[in-house]
């Protein structure tokens, strides 16, 4: 079974600075999807960025980018120019491409604090 590990329970960043959240995963599959979700206190899960395993190019969405290292099974999230609104729980997630295994598996989460 696939597992997702986030080794940083909490991270802190100064406003306007850059922070990187770590994620590793374990799988025997070659094709899959990886995601970062943000969950603010409102509980709403918000998709931040996605990456397809077959794509070598790292995904980028405005201030958010990933460092995807397939061989190392690593998928870190970089937040540039951090803003107060970035404060939230961040979850790394894995989704298989297999037809009968399409649920999403989540890491334990990293709580990000942004200091003004």
């Amino acid at each position, binding site marked *: 079974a696939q597992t997702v590990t986030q080794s940083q329970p909490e991270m802190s960043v100064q406003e306007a600075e850059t922070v990187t959240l770590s994620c590793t995963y374990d799988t025997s599959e070659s094709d899959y*999807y990886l*995601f970062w*979700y943000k969950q603010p206190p*409102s*509980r*709403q*899960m918000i*998709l931040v960025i*996605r990456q*397809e395993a077959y794509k070598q190019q790292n995904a980028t969405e405005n201030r958010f980018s990933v460092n995807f290292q397939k061989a190392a099974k690593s998928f870190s999230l970089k937040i540039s120019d951090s803003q107060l609104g970035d404060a939230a*729980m961040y*979850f790394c*997630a894995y*989704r298989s491409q297999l*037809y009968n295994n*399409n*649920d*999403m*598996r*989540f*890491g*334990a*989460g990293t*709580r990000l604090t942004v200091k003004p």
Partner: protein
Amino acid sequence: SAVISQKPSRDICQRGTSLTIQCQVDSQVTMMFWYRQQPGQSLTLIATANQGSEATYESGFVIDKFPISRPNLTFSTLTVSNMSPEDSSIYLCSAGRLQGDYGYTFGSGTRLTVV
């Protein structure tokens, strides 16, 4: 991506009773899932809601305790039966399409407190 309406947003229930949570999606989706989340913790998959057939449950979750219905491609319910204080948690539904790299959309969650 799909938009999900989840109801109720919160409830306080007596032990031994049951609560049904509803999720309505604004478009037809292939996949629907139910998760449980303790405050400050990660999401644990309860089951995959299959349209027109019995849900597929994860280890540790059983149909008698968490019956799930999915009568069509846009609607699903999760019932938490014979509740105890240990069932106090946040319950979230999620939905998405089978094909493509789209992340799944989530409902806003139901905060359940059992007293």
